[in-house]
Structure formats: structure tokens, C-alpha cells
């Protein structure tokens, strides 16, 4: 039985459809990422699964129970890292870990939590004196102190500097290796690509794509060719020249030209041949494998087109 099973979930706030027909499931031990822009419905969906909100309609099963009327046993088996929730700033890291840990049946020891969250040096500091990133690690620490079977992580690394993100990823990966099931929401594509076994792309309250990061990337034509628009070229004129050379539609953002091509060798040959003939340099010319970001952009573009037509 899946750890999380959501089917046709809806949540309305008046006329606003925050979640609008969401269905997905998460198997035991999986790290599942809900990916979507701000306002896509990620947090609302997760808070329904946590039991903080009730659904307008649809069925939700988490660890075999309906979270909206689940009690203490349910909350003993889950860990929650909310997007923003305070901790008692008058207390030290040690005190809050012991205080919150004291509510669970089988909590992790202080040393284990502190080591996992990377708070060794801050254990006797008051929460109020910690930096934003350190407080977020306290959030993670309190999320895992109860040894959860299922951990909810709502945008766990938003606002982190790159090295703090890496450390948090290491923590989440080690939890995944432990067999903890993780539901992660993020709007960072690299985070989903790095951590998730499967990704659900959420837009306007429903899934528009789902699969392993690999599967999603395979949905979009394989290779991205990009370069800077040569001097003297008007962005509006780029499609005529480069679109026809590459034989696909191109995207221009600022002076960056990007195109997804199926046969990169031939495409690069045509475009570099043209550049040599014309005597222009294509700065920052690169050929790279398609990223989850490209997938995401192409998916959400399609949704936009469908909705405006």
C-alpha cells in the first residue's frame, strides 16, 4: 500500500481553486518532489496531507489513515517541516530538541539529531541568536526528532546559500537512504533533480506531468544549444536567422538564445558554419543535455497556451 495516496483532491477558498483535481501516490521509502511555481498549490496540498487543512473534496490517505481526523498515533509517525513556523527563540537548540523530542514514543537522541542536522557547534546557543539558515536546520532537526516514517519538507532550502543547500541535500539524502519516505515541495528544479526519485509537476492545482527526473527530461527533445546573440543583431530578428539555421523554434531571453534540437551535431555544424562565413563570434556557445528546468518551462508554457486559447 502506498504511504501517501491522493485521488482527485480539491481545495477551494471561495472562488480560488488552490488544489484542483490532484492525484498522486508515494511508495514507501520514496523521495517524491512536488514541483511548481509559487501559488501552484504545493503548500495547500501538503498541509492537507499533514492534517493542518481539510480538503473540499477528494480522497486522501496518509500512512493508511485520513489525516483530517487522525490523532496522536498519526502525528507520532510523521515529521513536518513547514515553510515558515517559528521556534521558541528564548530556548537553546538543545532545549527545543529535548522539549519537542519528549512528545514522541521513540525519539532520536539529541546527539543523533544534532549530528544529522549539522548543529553541533550551535547546540547551546539560543534560537534567537541563530542565522536564518541555522534556524532552518533547527526546523529540520525538529522534523526528524520523532524518527518519522514520513517526512514532509515544504521548501526546505528556500533562502539558503549554496553550501547550506548542499548540506541540507546530504541530510535529506541520508534520510532517504534510511528508508524514510519524504514528500518534498520545491520550486528549485536542481533540488528536485538532485533529490527526488519521482517528481510531480504541479500547475494551477493539478499535476501536469509526473515521472522520474530522467523520464521527464526524456519527454523534451534531448539537447539544448545556447549562445549569446551577436552584436548588431536585434532580438526580434533572431528567429528568422537562427530559427531557420537550427530548424526549430528558438527562445530568446535578454541576449541569450536557446533552442532544443534533436540532432545537435548537424545543428551545431550549420550554425558554426554560418558564424564562420559571417565572421561573427557566438559567445558562450554551449551544447548541453536538457535540464529539468527546460522540461518545466516547456510544460508550463503549454499550460499557459491551453488556458489562453
Amino acid at each position: 500500500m502506498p504511504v501517501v495516496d491522493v485521488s482527485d483532491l480539491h481545495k477551494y477558498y471561495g472562488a480560488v481553486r488552490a488544489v484542483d483535481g490532484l492525484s498522486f501516490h508515494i511508495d514507501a521509502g520514496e523521495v517524491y518532489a512536488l514541483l511548481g511555481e509559487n501559488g501552484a498549490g504545493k503548500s495547500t496540498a501538503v498541509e492537507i496531507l499533514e492534517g493542518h487543512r481539510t480538503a473540499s473534496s477528494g480522497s486522501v490517505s496518509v500512512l493508511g489513515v485520513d489525516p483530517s481526523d487522525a490523532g496522536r498515533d498519526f502525528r507520532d509517525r510523521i515529521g513536518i517541516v513547514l515553510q515558515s513556523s517559528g521556534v521558541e527563540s528564548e530556548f537553546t537548540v538543545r532545549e527545543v530538541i529535548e522539549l519537542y523530542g519528549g512528545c514522541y514514543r521513540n525519539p532520536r537522541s539529541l546527539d543523533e539529531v544534532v549530528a544529522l542536522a549539522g548543529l553541533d557547534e550551535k547546540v547551546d546557543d539560543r534560537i534567537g541568536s541563530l542565522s536564518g539558515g541555522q534556524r532552518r536546520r533547527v526546523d529540520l532537526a525538529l522534523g526528524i526528532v520523532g524518527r518519522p516514517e514520513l517526512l514532509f519538507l515544504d521548501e526546505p532550502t528556500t533562502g539558503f546559500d549554496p553550501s547550506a543547500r548542499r548540506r541540507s541535500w546530504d541530510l535529506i539524502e541520508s534520510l532517504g537512504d534510511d528508508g524514510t519516505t519524504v514528500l518534498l515541495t520545491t520550486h528549485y528544479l536542481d533540488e528536485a533533480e538532485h533529490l527526488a526519485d519521482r517528481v510531480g509537476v504541479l500547475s494551477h492545482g493539478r499535476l501536469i506531468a509526473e515521472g522520474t527526473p530522467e523520464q521527464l527530461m526524456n519527454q523534451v527533445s534531448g539537447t539544448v544549444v545556447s549562445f549569446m546573440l551577436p552584436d548588431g543583431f536585434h532580438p526580434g530578428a533572431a528567429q528568422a536567422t537562427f530559427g531557420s539555421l537550427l530548424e526549430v523554434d528558438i527562445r530568446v531571453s535578454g541576449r541569450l538564445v536557446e533552442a532544443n534540437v534533436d540532432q545537435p551535431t548537424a545543428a551545431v555544424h550549420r550554425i558554426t558554419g554560418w558564424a564562420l562565413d559571417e565572421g561573427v563570434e557566438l559567445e558562450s556557445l554551449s551544447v548541453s543535455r536538457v535540464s529539468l528546468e527546460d522540461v518545466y518551462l516547456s510544460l508550463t508554457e503549454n499550460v499557459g497556451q491551453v488556458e489562453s486559447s
Partner: protein
Amino acid sequence: MSGFPSTAAQLAAQTRYQLVTFVRIPVAVFFTLGLPLVMLVLFNALFGSGTFDTPDGEISAQQFYTGGLAAFTAVSATFTNLANMVPIRRDEGVLKRWRGTPLPTWIYIAGFILSAIVIAFVGVVLMLTLGVTVYDLEIEPAKMPAAFVTFVVGVGAFAALGMALASLVKSASSASAAANAIILPMAFVSNVFIQVDDGPQWIRTVGDLFPLKPFAESFQDAFTPFVEPPAFDWAALAFIAAWGAVGLVIALTRFTWEPSGSAPRGRRSRRTASAG
């Protein structure tokens, strides 16, 4: 698998945690425990040699102030303290975090209330100790049961009213203002700061509508020589308890765990949400 910690252990841990929080917030300690003591010293320095006429007899100013300010301390520690701290914790998202743990929510709330009662008890004992040692306050053992029962009913009722106010206000900043805007004028018409029995009728009437005046007077009775033991004023206690019951109903039906504005709610927020 081992079971959950016992209810008693969790209640003790939560009460202790709220008490530690309290002593680590100097401004809370000062306003709750320090300021009433300062008032006692000031009022006695200014008016302590006089007496007040009451319908029942003459009461010395020292007895009047000590009893009234002891009651006021108990109200500060429960009503004002809870109406301040609970919305702060809610705004911070601390309440929501606790709600996601296996701690039964009632134990969290009970820890808040029990800690407030402990603080009230400490405050009253401090006040009475100062009264006895410096201001000739007489403690008659025969009337202490009445003083204790009055204390228990009063702090229970004012804790419930503090939770009710915490449930009704939207944000922590308005909670603090609302609590003080209620309790300070009420203290002036309730025989805490000044004797109002000679004051205008409307002030006496207003005072009689709210629970602080019977609470303060019951306390004063316990320390006034002309009131015979055991000095139980059951009508006053019933009136205070009735106010407490109203507070409890409001708290139980209107309490929220989430910071205001975390979810679109009501007409205005709907409009904002659809515009965004």
C-alpha cells in the same frame, strides 16, 4: 515500541517550559510581577496613612491596596499574560508547529494556563509578604481558606478570559493593546487603584458588571479585620465563575492555531487572492 510519555509528565514538562519562557522574557517578568509591587510601594507612600469608608466599615489604605493589588497581580499573570503570549506564539507559528506533534493539543494549552497560575501564585505571595513585612497587613488563618478559594476561582476565570481574548484578536500587536485597554480602565473602576464606593453611581455600576471588582473585594475581605471569618463571598465567586465560563466557551469555539492571513479566508482575502 514504547508508549507515549504519561499525561502527568507531559503536563509538568509543558508547564515548566512556559515558566522558563516567562523568566527569560524580562519585560514580562517586570510588568507581571514587578510593576504591581512598585504600585503597592507608591500607593502606600502617597496614601498609606489614610482610611477608606466602605458600606461595611472602615478599611485601612494599606489593607485596601495590598488586597486589591494582589488580585490585580493574579489578573496580570493570567488574563494579561495569556492574552499577550498566546497570540505571539500563534503569530510566530509556534502553535502550528506544536499542533503537528503528537503532544495532545489540550496539554499544550493546559501548560500555558498552569504556568500562568503558578506565576499568579508567586505574585500574590510576593505581594502579601511585602504587605505583612512592611505595611502591617494582618493575616488571619481562619480566613485563608476563603483567600485561597477566591484565588483559585479568580485565576481560573481570568485565565479563561485571557484565552478568550487571545482567540478573538487577530495579531499579537493588537492583543497586547487590547489586553491593557481592558484591564487598566477596569482596575480604576474596580477598587484596585482607588476606592470607588464614594464615586459616581455610573462608575460603581460599570465596576459591578465586570469580574475584577468582586475578585478584588473578595481578596480585600480576606485581609480586613472587620470582616468575620471565614469571609467567603459565594455570590461574588459565582459571578466571577460565570464570567470565566463565558470566557471558556469563547476560547473553545474561537481558538485558532494558525497565524492570521496564512490561509485565504473571508471576503477581503478572497478578493486579494483572486487579484493576485
